[in-house]
């Protein structure tokens, strides 16, 4: 913000000078009626719009772990090891879980997945608190595929990505990106 500048110093035991005092009052009046009257609608709109349209959520992967092997007949949680984006402390690298933050991040999430390896032989599902909630079509390594449905979560929900192998053989894969995008609160 602009600052107020007073043009004249008024000093004790000097010749009385009404002009200087009057100029000081005029400066205060001009400041209050000028700089302080600025319409900040555009600034506030830009700030709110920028914040409202930013990405909120997290993106993790297990690239640094190399390939994850899953035995036939198993359903294994993906062991995430890397964090690409995390706006609100969703992911603890010491855990395989994504935790919905305790404050302000309840709502609808779009889950997205990129993966390489024997992904044709696997099914990937999003679990919330141990319950399957959304399923991915066969992912690829080039771009994110979104899950079949959006997922509603509340604070402290634990989100995991589970790979399911019913192919008859052991399979391996690497999740190059698993993203949760917050798209709106639940009224």
């Amino acid at each position: 913000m602009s600052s107020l500048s007073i043009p004249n110093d008024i000093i004790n035991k000097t010749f009385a000078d009404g002009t200087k005092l009057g100029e000081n009052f005029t400066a205060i009046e001009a400041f209050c009626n000028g700089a302080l009257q600025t319409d900040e609608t555009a600034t506030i709109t830009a700030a709110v719009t920028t914040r409202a349209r930013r990405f909120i959520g997290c993106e993790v992967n297990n690239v640094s772990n190399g390939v994850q092997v899953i035995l036939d007949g198993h359903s294994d949680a993906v062991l995430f090891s890397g964090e690409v984006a995390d706006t609100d402390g969703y992911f603890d690298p010491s855990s395989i879980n994504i935790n919905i933050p305790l404050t302000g991040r309840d709502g609808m999430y779009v889950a997205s997945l990129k993966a390489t390896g024997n992904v044709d032989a696997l099914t990937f599902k999003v679990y919330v608190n141990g319950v399957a909630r959304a399923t991915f079509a066969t992912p690829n390594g080039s771009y994110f595929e979104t899950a079949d449905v959006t997922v509603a979560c509340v604070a402290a929900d634990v989100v995991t990505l589970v790979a399911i192998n019913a192919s008859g053989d052991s399979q391996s894969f690497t999740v190059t990106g698993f993203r949760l995008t917050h798209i709106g609160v639940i009224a």
Partner: protein
Amino acid sequence: MTALGLPNDIADGQAGDASKVQANFDAIKTYVNTTLPADRATAVAAAAATAIEAASEFVGVEVSRAASVAVVAEATSTVSFTAEVLDTDGYFTATSTNIVIPTDMGGLYVPSLKMSDPNPMTVTVWVNGTARQTFAFGFSSSYYTAMKPIHVADGDVVTLRVFNATSGTLSYTVTGFRLTRISA
């Protein structure tokens, strides 16, 4: 906002009048401590309301093609859009098959479609020459059919392709193909 009005002019050569000076100070004090905060609170609330409205407005593009296109058997038609219904950030320039994601507008988009009865045609969204998602059947020209969101990046080229799997010629029009941005 309310303006500050000082009650007294203070000039040189006047008889000393401390009460006039004090009245000016009192006016400033009232303005700074009472009038100004109230005015600013009202102004900021109004600006915030305006900002929230702006933030929740549609972001994306909607294009259409009114003229009917005939697609022969076993052929694919890339829709050439002829009109722009909505375009918040310069996604599209008519006439073109391409919607180009503008700079800083990459993100998550929900594609939706209003189309004249295309059944049993297959309508697919392509990005940079790769098929991404196919719309479920059951279109209408009077309401939008949406699909799950797709991720696109700045500069990506989005097209819509219509495949006629029948043994005869079919025709279509696109009354609205919309990409709605829902997140960065």
